[in-house]
C-alpha cells in the first residue's frame, strides 16, 4: 500500500508516543508483512498492518490463460500448501463444467491434501516456535517436512510447486511404491508430534509466552472474518471438511479440534491436534484407497494418456485441441471453498463461455485473519506482536496474490 509513500500512516497522538516500523524485512513477520506500531514505552497503542509488497497480479494473469494453464499459478499463491490451492481451483472449474471425478482421484486428493496440511503446519510450528525463542522445534519440524516434500517429489516430480491436481483428476498415476512410503511416514509421524509437544506444550517458558496472549472472543473473530484454526481457537466449531464436505471428505472420520480460550496457546493446541487428525485421515485414505481410473471420462477436457495420444488418431486430435485452443466452460459462476491449513480458501470463477476464465478471484483466508491483528495486540507489549503474528499463521503470497 504505502511502499512509495512518504506520508507516515500513523501520526503520533501525544508527545509520549512514538511510531515504530516493523518489517517488511523483519524475520518474524513471515515474509513481507509490514506492521506500523504506535507505542507508549513498550505498550502498543495502535497497530496497522501494511501489505502489498508481494502483489503479483495473479488474478489478472489468470484472465489471460486457458483454464488448465491457471493450475500452476494457483501453486504460487500459497506456497506452503500448493495442493490445497490446486484442489480448490480444480473443484471450482469441475463444478462449472459439471464433471464427475472418479473415486480414486478424489481419495488421492484427500490423501495429498492432508499431507500438505501437515507440511504447512510443520512450517508454521517451526517458525512460530523460533519466533518465540525455541530453536530446536524448528529443526525437528523441518526434518519431518523434508520427508513430506520427498513424497511430493515422488508423486509429482516437484517438491513445492506440485501442480499435481488437474481439471478432471490427477496429472499422473502415483508411482508403485508411493503408498508404502506414505504408510511408512504415517506410522512414524505420531511419535514425532509427541516430540514437539514434549518440547512445547508443558514448557513453562512457552506457556508464559502464549497463554492469555493476544486473546480474541468468538464473536469478535467471526465479525472480523477469521476462519480455520484461528476461529476454532476461539471456540467456534466449524470446519468446511466436515460441515460442507467436498472431494469425498464425508467418507472420512475425524475430529475437529476446538479450543475455548482464544489465545495464542489455544490456536497452537488446535493446530497441533490437527496434525494428529490429519495423519489419521491419511491412514484411512491408505486403507480404503479405491481402485480405478484417476481421470474423468471427458476427452474434451482431460488430456489423453501419452500412449493413446501416440497411437490413436482421435486421442491425438483431442490432445492437440486442448493444448492449442483449451476447452470452453459453459457460462456461469461458481464459488468453491475448501479448508486450507489457514482457513477458508475460496475460488470464485466466472465463465463467459470461452476457453479463458472471465474472472478468477481467490478468497484468501490469511487476508481476513490478518484483520484480527489490531484487535489482538492493542494494549499489549511489542513482544506479543511476534507471538500474535505467528499464531494467525499468515502466508504473504496468499494475502497479496
Amino acid at each position, binding site marked *: 500500500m504505502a511502499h512509495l509513500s512518504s506520508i507516515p500512516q500513523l501520526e503520533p497522538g501525544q508527545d509520549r508516543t512514538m511510531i515504530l516500523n516493523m518489517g517488511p524485512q523483519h524475520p518474524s513477520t513471515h515474509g513481507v508483512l509490514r506492521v506500523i506500531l504506535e507505542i507508549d514505552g513498550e505498550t502498543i497503542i495502535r497497530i496497522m498492518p501494511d501489505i502489498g509488497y508481494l502483489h503479483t497480479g495473479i488474478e489478472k494473469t489468470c484472465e489471460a490463460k486457458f483454464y488448465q494453464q491457471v493450475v500452476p499459478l494457483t501453486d504460487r499463491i500459497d506456497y506452503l500448501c500448493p495442493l490445497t490451492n490446486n484442489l480448490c481451483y480444480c473443484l471450482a472449474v469441475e463444478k462449472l463444467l459439471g464433471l464427475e471425478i472418479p473415486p480414486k482421484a478424489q481419495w488421492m486428493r484427500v490423501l495429498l491434501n492432508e499431507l500438505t496440511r501437515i507440511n504447512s503446519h510443520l512450517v508454521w510450528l517451526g517458525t512460530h516456535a523460533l519466533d518465540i525463542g525455541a530453536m530446536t522445534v524448528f529443526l525437528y519440524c523441518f526434518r519431518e517436512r523434508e520427508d513430506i516434500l520427498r513424497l511430493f517429489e515422488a508423486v509429482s516430480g516437484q517438491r513445492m510447486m506440485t501442480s499435481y491436481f488437474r481439471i478432471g483428476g490427477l496429472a499422473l498415476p502415483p508411482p508403485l511404491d508411493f503408498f508404502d512410503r506414505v504408510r511408512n511416514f504415517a506410522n512414524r509421524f505420531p511419535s514425532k508430534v509427541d516430540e514437539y509437544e514434549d518440547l512445547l506444550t508443558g514448557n513453562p517458558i512457552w506457556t508464559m509466552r502464549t497463554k492469555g496472549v493476544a486473546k480474541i472472543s468468538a464473536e469478535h473473530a467471526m465479525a472480523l*472474518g477469521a*476462519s480455520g484454526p484461528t476461529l476454532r481457537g476461539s471456540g467456534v466449531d466449524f470446519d468446511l471438511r466436515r460441515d460442507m464436505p467436498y472431494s469425498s471428505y464425508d467418507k472420512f472420520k475425524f475430529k475437529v479440534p476446538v479450543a475455548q480460550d482464544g489465545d495464542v496457546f489455544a490456536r497452537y493446541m488446535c493446530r497441533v491436534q490437527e496434525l494428529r487428525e490429519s495423519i489419521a485421515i491419511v491412514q484411512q485414505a491408505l486403507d480404503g484407497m479405491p481402485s480405478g481410473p484417476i481421470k474423468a471420462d471427458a476427452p474434451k477436457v482431460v488430456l489423453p494418456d501419452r500412449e493413446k495420444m501416440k497411437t490413436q488418431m482421435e486421442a491425438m486430435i483431442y490432445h492437440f485441441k486442448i493444448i492449442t485452443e483449451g476447452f470452453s466452460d459453459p457460462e456461469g*459462476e461458481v464459488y468453491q471453498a475448501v479448508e486450507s491449513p489457514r482457513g477458508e480458501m475460496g475460488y470464485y470463477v466466472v465463465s463467459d463461455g470461452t476457453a479463458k476464465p472471465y474472472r478468477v478471484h481467490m478468497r484468501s483466508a490469511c*487476508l481476513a485473519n490478518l484483520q484480527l491483528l489490531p484487535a489482538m495486540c492493542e494494549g499489549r507489549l511489542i513482544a506479543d506482536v511476534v507471538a500474535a503474528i505467528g499464531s494467525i499463521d499468515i502466508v504473504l503470497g496468499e494475502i497479496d496474490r
Partner: protein
Amino acid sequence: MPLAPPITDIEQLKAHPAIARLLNWNPSAVQGVKFDRDEMSIYVERSAIREACSLLRDDATCPFNFLSDVTCVDLYPSEPRFEVIYHLLSISQKERVRLKVRLAGDAPTLESITSVWPAANFFEREVFDLFGIRFTGHPFLRRIQMPENWEGHPLRKDYPVEGYR
C-alpha cells in the same frame, strides 16, 4: 453429468431463507434471483445492500453470520458495468448465499458494509484498489495492494495488460 439450467423465477425460489427474509422486508430490494449449480445468487438493489446484509446477519432462523468474501466483476463494455459480489455463509445452518449489486460504469459508488461486518474492511479496500469502486462510510479507504501513487485500477477490463504504463 449434464448441467441443469439455471432457475431465475423468483416464485420458485421464494422458500430460500435469505430470499424470503429480503422479500418480507422490502420486495423492491430484490431485483432478481438465480439458482445455478447449487448456488443461490440474489441481485440486491444498490441502496439496500447494507441493510440487506444486516438483516441477513441477524435473521433468527438462518443467520448468515459470516462474511466470506467481497469481490467485483467488471463487465466492460456492457452496462451496468460492475457487479460487486458478497459471499455470505451461515455457520450454524451451513448455507451459502451470494448477493450481487450492479453498478454503473461512471463513478461507481456503493455503501460500505464495514458497519455490519468489520471483516469487509480489507476486502472493500481491495475492490477499491483494483476496480476503483468507492465505498461510502468506509473507515480507511486507501489502496491496499498497489502503491499509493499508482494510477488506474488494474483488474478493470480496459486496463492494458502489456506495454509501458
